[in-house]
């Protein structure tokens, strides 16, 4: 670690402190502390079962963490303690939006409808909590027009404007991923959490995804926290990488720092066959008893 202050140290949009999540006897996340810098693209990486999705579910309120504090500071300067909020309040008040590992679009609704559902809360207020809307009074029509314009902006951005009136379930896989990101962005978040956005994408689609994420950060000022296995995305666009293994943080720094961290190389990035012994030797020297294989439980099961 260099002495200069990084964004995530000086101006954190989200600070996770001593987060622990236990499922019965299984410790899925163990005393995890990290920060997400404002305007940064932060990648949370680690081998399968390392507890990445559990961290996401804690941040977005789908799980109540066993212990720990997660403080979120949106642009308006307010402070929200996420561990105390139910999931929908996290999205509404603390301005954290998320996508899912297995795409969760409203497949029977059109692309436009998907993006309008994401703007539910402001539209609900515009329709006078439905009562004025049913009677047809108040400025709901104008607000709905604005919402459609906003949806249009995102459809343009993900290149799906021509298919606005098609059902979301008809889209190809890559387009569904982009639509899910657009839907999350329509809630107007300050922090966008993406759970494996590049999973199942071909190299061209991955490159498009990189451009989309960079433009979200540039144009909308939204900080991004992502879980990813695709190294071209992680190393290509992220400013900050946090590496988890068995629920514990093993590295935290810029992509270059983590890329060269021997523990990360051994745990996650994988090593060439001929290098295995060499690295194990190196590890033994550095950490004494080396790193034993611990039994890993599947603690990433998403709550249905």
């Amino acid at each position, binding site marked *: 670690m260099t002495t200069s202050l990084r964004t995530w140290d000086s101006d954190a949009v989200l600070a996770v402190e001593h987060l622990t999540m236990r499922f019965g006897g299984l410790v899925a996340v163990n005393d995890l502390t990290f920060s997400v810098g404002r305007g940064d693209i932060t990648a949370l990486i680690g081998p399968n079962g390392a507890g990445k999705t559990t961290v996401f579910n804690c941040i*977005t309120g*789908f799980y109540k963490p066993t212990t720990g504090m997660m403080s979120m500071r949106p642009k308006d300067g307010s402070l929200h303690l996420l561990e105390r909020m139910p*999931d*929908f*309040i996290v*999205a*509404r008040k603390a301005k954290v*939006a*998320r996508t*899912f590992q297995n795409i*969760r*679009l*409203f*497949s*029977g*609704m*059109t692309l*436009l*409808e998907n993006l*309008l*559902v*994401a*703007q*539910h*809360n402001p*539209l*609900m207020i515009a*329709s006078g909590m*439905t009562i004025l*809307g*049913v009677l*047809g009074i108040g400025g*709901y029509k104008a607000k*709905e027009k604005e919402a*459609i314009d906003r*949806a*249009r902006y995102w*459809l343009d951005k993900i290149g799906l*404007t021509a298919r*606005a*009136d*098609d*059902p979301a*379930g*008809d889209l190809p896989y890559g387009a569904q991923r982009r639509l899910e990101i657009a*839907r*999350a962005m329509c*809630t107007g978040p300050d922090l966008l959490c993406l759970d494996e956005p590049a999973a199942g994408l071909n190299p061209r689609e991955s490159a498009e995804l990189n451009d989309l994420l960079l433009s979200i950060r540039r144009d909308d000022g939204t900080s991004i926290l992502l879980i990813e296995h695709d190294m071209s995305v992680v190393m290509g666009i992220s400013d900050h990488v946090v590496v988890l293994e068995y629920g514990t943080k093993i590295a935290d720094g810029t992509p270059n720092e983590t890329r060269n961290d021997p523990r990360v190389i051994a745990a996650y990035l994988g090593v060439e066959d001929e290098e295995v012994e060499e690295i194990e030797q190196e590890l033994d020297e550095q950490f004494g008893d080396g790193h034993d294989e611990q039994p890993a439980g599947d603690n990433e099961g998403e*709550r*249905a």
Partner: protein
Amino acid sequence: MSTQAKSLPQGGPDFGQALKDGVIVAIIAFALLGPLVGLRTDQNMANELIIQNRLGLAAILSAIVGAGRFLLSAFVYPWLTARGRKTKAAVTLAELETRATRARHLSIGGLAFLFVYPVLIISLVGVQGSIKWVDNFGVQILIYVMLGWGLNIVIGLAGLLDLGYVAFYAVGAYSYALLAINFHLSFWVLLPVAGILAAFWGLILGFPVLRLRGDYLAIVTLAFGEIIRLVLINWKAFSGGSAGISSIPKVTLFGLYSFDVSAPNNFAKVFHLAASSAYYKVFLYYLILLLALLTAFVTMRLRRLPIGRAWEALREDEVACRSLGINTTNTKLTAFAIGAMFGGFAGSFFAARQGFVSPESFIFMESAVIVAIVVLGGMGSMIGVALAAVAMIGGTELLRELSFLKAVFGNDFNPDQYRMLLFGLAMVIIMVWKPRGFVSVRQPTAFLFRRKTVSGDLVKEGHG
């Protein structure tokens, strides 16, 4: 055994196989029917148990079964597969589009027909003869159309399987009956009150219940429907027990004209018409028609509002809804309460129409019929639900009219008793023929360029 088989034209590629199928099925049928039908125990004059041999009858029945199987294998199945192949290939977007246009034309035509229906009936069969057609068919069907549309909000839009909808119908009916008798309030005051009370019950039920999902929700709502009925039976001081409440006041024409025979402002007297209950029936017909249309209008408006979109999104994926900041509990509660409110309206109308309510009218069967109407109609589709109500309620009413069948089956035959059998058969056939109901396409609530109908295959049914 399949004697008919020989008389049928030969030469089709499948006929040998079909004949074999027929013979095998006939043999299996005989093995089953032989003991069941062929041997009958009876008592003779000396009170001894004797066995009657009816193997001939069993053989005839088995032959009929075999012949039926032969016909299915030889003609019906090939025809069905050919048709299935054709429709699968033919359903394109344009096809869906024309279907939607057809549905729209159908709804406008249907609406016009509904408004002229009583006039048409009176001009055809006279004032006195119209009672049966306006009341038994018109009003009865429209009550179920309204109930179907009300439940459609809960099941079709929000995807919550509510098997106790009849409870809210009962709350509405008893609200009107009790408040009208004890406080002498008019129907027009009590209609909204009944709706509000039913919605309130919806909320009370909803709070604990809506944490449950899927089958659990269905079971608890079913139990709630039964609890309301049992309370009405047992709390005699409040509801009159199983004897029910009688002489519930009739609806007045906004207090201007009454339909009570003894009242000075009796409608028929004022207009110097022959005394008949037909005028009241026609009035009730238009009243329930307007109430049903109100339900439809409000539902269509709600679908275009954020709350309606949130209901449908909830049906599609609840977890995603929560990640977008939607309070799913409140959203479910509003669906439950608004559905219950329309049930309450229909209930107070029912009490005013019957002039008598008892717990007998609010059995589980009623809930089952309403759910069947919604599912049969195609979940979420207004026109489909209306068509299903016409088919189900009109169909059962029509069975009462089939007295000519007595000429065929003998004087003991009562077509009414076969209602449930035919009902079940019809449901099975329709569900095989159209598994997603009469109208399976979904109309989007907003569009950027062009309104395209969404194929029912993509729309989820909801699971909670």
